[in-house]
């Protein structure tokens, strides 16, 4: 099976905004006026920066409480993990699993996958290129589901407001957690999956 040519072989560059095949020497897409880059600018450095920042924020996001619950005078604070455990112990294993996947498994998977992609691209590895491409697409698709916990806390805090009887308030942890999600999304967006394939051509 013969593989198709690369854009560089035909002196073409893809416009990321509108999908137009532009000539290699243009700076702005002739069709939609966006800036055209052969590869996303400073892709590896920017992705590392976003990834490290999100890793740092992930620590307070898990250690600090995300929610303060006051039920009939009994106040308690919940972290993300203690929320999951509470669900698990109360018998709703399905919801516990859902929140665990969205809030813990997905961010961790993103850290691992982006880290692997960055390191292999920097080493100009030609290992499992097709599979690494698939991994990148996977984290693009599942990444934003981590916002789940932020939105759940928002909804619950908006609903449970009965002054003296009971109230639920968001806490600092949810800020860090939300920032982790945004930063990992930015990291995934600034990574250029074409770098995976560049090693094959440039080192050949």
């Amino acid at each position: 099976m013969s593989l198709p040519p690369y854009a560089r072989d035909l002196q073409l560059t893809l416009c990321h905004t509108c999908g137009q095949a532009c000539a290699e020497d243009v700076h702005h897409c002739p069709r939609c006026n966006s800036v055209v880059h052969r590869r996303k600018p400073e892709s590896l450095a920017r992705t590392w920066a976003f990834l490290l920042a999100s890793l740092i924020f992930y620590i307070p996001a898990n250690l600090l409480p995300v929610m303060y619950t006051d039920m009939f005078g009994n106040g308690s604070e919940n972290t993300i993990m203690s929320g999951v455990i509470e669900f698990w112990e109360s018998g709703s294993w399905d919801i516990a699993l859902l929140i665990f996947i969205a809030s813990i498994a997905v961010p961790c998977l993103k850290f691992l996958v982006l880290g692997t992609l960055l390191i292999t691209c920097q080493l100009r590895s030609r290992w499992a290129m097709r599979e690494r491409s698939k991994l990148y697409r996977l984290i693009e698709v599942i990444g934003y589901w981590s916002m789940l916990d932020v939105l759940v806390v928002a909804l619950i805090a908006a609903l449970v407001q009965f002054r003296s009887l009971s109230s639920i308030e968001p806490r600092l942890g949810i800020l860090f957690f939300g920032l982790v999600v945004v930063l990992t999304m930015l990291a995934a967006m600034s990574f250029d999956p074409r770098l995976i394939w560049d090693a094959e051509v440039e080192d050949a």
Partner: protein
Amino acid sequence: MNKPDWIICEHCDSVYQPTPLVRGQKAFCLRCGAVLERGGHLSTQQLLALSICAAIVFCFANAFPVMSISLQGLGNEATLWQSVEALAQGRISVIAAVAGLTIILAPMLQIILLCWVLSFAVAGVAAPGFKACMRALEHLRPWSMLEVCLLGILVAIIKLGGMLDVHPGLGLWALGMLTVLIIIISGKGIRRLWHDLEGVIP
């Protein structure tokens, strides 16, 4: 060789000649396996109709509470906006901006821009600011997270269901419909307008 007709895979930079696809067909990249194109896009009229529908449903989803609770005779309900406001307390208000963007602002802008661009495209004309609108639609796509919000409401219903009486509100049904509509209209199908309006874009 007609240059603008090439398709380039955004994941590996492979170049292909486009093939006409019928509804349900997908073109995959031979090298990396990414989806290049999907066949059977909706027509401009269909997209416009769905966008207007989404605009109406959006108003319902935001005007009515998505869920309400009651506790010992006291009742309380929350709209999407009130949920965003609940996060805007003290030091964490940054996250309210993020939540507001993902569940209200981004979908709203998508609907407005789509209605604007499509209502001109139906007449075969490029809307004023066509290029800027199309670019904005591309950049908004990843930040619109209504499906996550929908799942969040369901989790919240179950979470609170253990201690209080929880009732889904009218806004929840509207939000469910809006989520489906947004998924249909906000995809990459809109890029077809670049081809359809070729020559009339200033």
